């Protein structure tokens, strides 16, 4: 087991990891930027070391400084959290070269799964269903149209280097295909200097369902059920829950087995997530694999009772998984709301500033993961997520009631948050009926999608 772990991250996830380490008797080293001198993770860790100025490129993304800090503080492992360097194959590789354990999968797997087309190819070979589409890159609209016709409309036109909706277009028929193709390609050329395009079947109003998997160094892989992350705003998850009410035990087993098969196909190790799209007819398609711990991991923890961060540290240190598939039972229902420092009425503009007054809800089945406190100054430099509120009830109905009550108690003053927006979602009849798909926010909250 590790003696000391350096946490190469900030915010609530750094706090979350420090707590897990402390419970395991492992010493912790926090790294912080000049803007995070007073951040909770800096104060909570056993030791803290400043790694540079506020911009992430010079601090939390600066691999050389983090490695140097790790060696200087004599930490024997690095937990990358999520974001920043968590899915950087080069960083994982450098850790290995420095004889530092990287708490996550190997550089090779990160690289393989990070490359969309290679991941897709690997999954097809492993017999995992994927969204029908082109396997080869497409460069011209004429070529694309032929492919689109063979796949069947509607189709999604995607830039190879694209992301965050850029270089993406939906075409519903041959009439608008070429126009959409050219504009997506132009966007990609302008934004990423890359004209490589892919075409795939467009799945209308799917659910975003992801399976948490956990694997050790000895080929043992388990899945920990699903999370429904369909409530999204511009491809950003807003609210997540587990389990998904429309998934039957049989489908869960089928999807879970597929996720395990996918992980085994790449000799996966540590925590990972397989993302699927689930269409109206309950067909599921592999979307991508995330090779890190996710923001929404607490909902899985609440329904399975397993501490995912501890499990990550365990397997990284060479231990076997603490559970077998048959030990895992989903009990009750969990929901997570992400509370961000942003103003929904101003197009979710980030709102950094000083928190002047704060009150957190509590009680049975309410969990809050956060790094904020009274008088904390939210820096403008980083992600705007302030806290994650996660509730656990015996079923979905109870979880919703609990979340509604908890959101009603949550008070953060001094800066704008999306707390009220979350409250509106929880109170929406469609949400309560479980009619959630990735089009939920644009459909029911068009005022927030301008």
């Amino acid at each position: 087991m590790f003696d000391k772990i350096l946490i190469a991250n900030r915010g609530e996830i750094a706090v979350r990891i420090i707590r897990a380490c402390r419970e395991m008797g492992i010493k912790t080293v926090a790294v912080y930027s000049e803007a995070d001198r007073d951040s909770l993770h800096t104060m909570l860790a056993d030791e803290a070391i400043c790694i540079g100025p506020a911009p992430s490129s010079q601090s939390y993304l600066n691999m050389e400084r983090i490695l140097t800090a790790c060696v200087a503080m004599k930490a024997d492992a690095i937990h990358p959290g999520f974001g920043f360097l968590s899915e950087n194959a080069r960083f994982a590789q450098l850790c290995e070269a420095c004889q530092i354990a990287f708490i996550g999968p190997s550089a090779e797997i990160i690289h393989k799964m990070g490359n969309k087309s290679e991941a897709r190819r690997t999954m097809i070979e492993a017999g995992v269903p994927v969204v029908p589409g082109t396997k080869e890159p497409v460069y011209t609209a004429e070529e694309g149209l032929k492919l689109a016709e063979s796949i069947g409309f509607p189709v999604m036109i995607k830039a190879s280097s694209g992301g965050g909706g850029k270089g993406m277009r939906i075409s519903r028929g041959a009439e608008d295909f070429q126009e959409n193709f050219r504009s997506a390609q132009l966007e990609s050329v302008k934004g990423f200097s890359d004209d490589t395009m892919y075409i795939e079947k467009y799945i209308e109003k799917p659910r975003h369902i992801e399976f948490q998997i956990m694997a050790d160094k000895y080929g043992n892989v388990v899945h920990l059920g699903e999370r429904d992350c369909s409530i999204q705003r511009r491809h950003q998850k807003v609210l997540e829950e587990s389990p998904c009410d429309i998934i039957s035990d049989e489908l869960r087993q089928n999807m879970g087995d597929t996720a395990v098969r996918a992980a085994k196909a790449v000799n996966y190790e540590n925590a990972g997530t397989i993302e699927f799209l689930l269409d109206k007819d309950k067909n599921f398609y592999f979307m991508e694999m995330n090779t890190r711990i996710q923001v929404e991991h607490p909902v899985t923890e609440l329904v399975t009772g397993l501490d995912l961060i501890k499990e990550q540290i365990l397997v990284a240190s060479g231990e076997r998984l603490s559970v077998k598939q048959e030990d895992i039972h989903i009990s009750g229902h969990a929901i997570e709301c992400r509370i961000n420092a942003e103003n929904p009425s101003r197009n979710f503009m980030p709102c950094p500033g000083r928190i002047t007054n704060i009150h957190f809800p509590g009680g049975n089945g309410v969990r809050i993961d956060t790094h904020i406190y009274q008088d904390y100054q939210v820096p403008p430099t980083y992600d705007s997520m302030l806290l994650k509120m996660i509730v656990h009830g015996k079923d979905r109905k109870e979880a919703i009631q609990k979340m509604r009550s908890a959101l009603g108690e949550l008070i953060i003053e001094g800066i704008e948050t999306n707390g009220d927006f979350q409250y509106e979602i929880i109170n929406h009849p469609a949400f309560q009926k479980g009619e959630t798909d990735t089009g939920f926010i644009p459909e029911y909250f068009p005022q927030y999608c301008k």
Partner: protein
Amino acid sequence: MLRDMFKKTYTLIDTKYSASKGNKEKEPSIPQGLWRKCNKCGQPIYVEDVMSNHYVCPKCGGYFRVHAYRRIEMLVDEGTFEEWNQKMEFSNPLDFPGYEKKVLAAREKTKLDEAVVTGKGAICGQWAVVCVCDSRFMMSSMGHVVGEKITQAIERATREKLPVIIFAASGGARMQEGIVSLMQMAKTSAALKRHHEEGQLFISVLTDPTTGGVTASFAMLGDIIIAEPRALIGFAGPRVIEQTIGQKLPEGFQRAEFLLDHGFVDMILERKDQKDTIGMLLKMHGREKGFFQKQRILEKDESLSYGLKDKVKPAASKSAWDTVLISRKADRPTALDYIHGLFDDFIELHGDRYFKDDGAIVGGIAFFHGMPVTVIGQAKGRNTKDNIKRNFGMPSPDGYRKALRLMKEAEAFGRPIICFVDTPGAFCGLEAEERGQGEAIARNLFEMSSLKVPVLSIVIGEGGSGGALAMATANEVWMLEHAIYSILSPEGFASILWKDSKKAADASKVMKITAADLYRMGLIEQIIPEEEEFNLETLPSTIHYLEKALEEFFIRMEGMDGSQLAESRYKRFRTM
């Protein structure tokens, strides 16, 4: 504040997770050389990133000096390079003490026998002789062996009728070899002259640093000269100049960009583009000599037909003054629009090799239906900023000299020349007179008259006087329907004859300057139709028309050899 308020001591009640003690053979440490520091920006960088980025710093874009063999790997098609004269006997003409030891040390350090690697290889499928200097070997100074290897490579290229590409880098002559080193300058230059006279192409690529005797010999003799971004290129070193003149030199002095502005390099080329562009240039210079073999590679497009108003009748639909105004409209397509519309793979070449690169004239090599051609145009800008760079389409003497240089290059490699004329007139200013505007125009008329390749000029907007004629001494001259071509502007004409430039409209009527007028007078061969509203949107139909007309022009020229082409051009003007 919460700082120092948290309790950080804790005891474990379960030993499940207790740290394994004593197992510390794998102490974390950073291995030596895991990353390096960029010597330009100081940022940590990784060897494999630099290698996969053509030895350019991924952080700051700074160019690192490249080992000769790595350079060849980046340039030459895999497995095609055959090295010549790898070993050559060491020579110490001055019996300079310690020289041999120094060379042996350099050999040991660089794993090279001398400062240049020569041989033959294919670049994008085109064979060429390649010489690469390596600055890590005694600063790639040129001694007898370097001069000899380069000379032998050029001579063999001349015999085997191959183009030569030299990647130059040098601190200058090799001091230890004294006057013998100086002679290498003449030797290499003389070999290049013979190679040139055999009609073969020489591409010189200037890398950081190219100075001294190498700049003053083979490096500056390329038919095409390419430089790497920010490379130091000069004759005297900056330190020597500073000491001599007792002044601090300006930022960017003697850098590649400075040379481009001053007309000494054709282009600055990023490393990642070098292979493709050099491959394309080799293709454009073909191996067949003369226009007549070239013509066979004109891929005729059978589907082409005149779509626009068919062949235009020379009847002016607009008044002369309206035509003048149309020819000057700001949204009228410019030479570059025609060049990009009509030709493929246009590679722009810059500079007159004397003083400057004139933005008012653009020129380069491109393909027309698979046949390489040289295209030159007088370029107006689209907006004020662009127009300042292009001097509102008014060429300086440097522009005409650049045009002539490109035409001579086209003649040497048997490529037809197409000129686009669009200028209010040659630039009239102090500097233009200082550098001989009159001489430059005259020289073009003189030299163009005897070019041994077909020359076509198309007046696309304003054909302003001598400034236009200096690019229109052609086998055929065509005009766009609403272009004008005149002895001087109607304003100038009115002020000379009637002492009132406001009478320009009246002047335009009597001057006979429209396409229809010139056609009737037998001064041009064709009128190219325009759409009613002629701008970038409606340009394609004119381009389509021109494509057909160009094909026919090349077919007309087909039967003539070089001297007949010159003769027909002579006669064309002789009858006027």
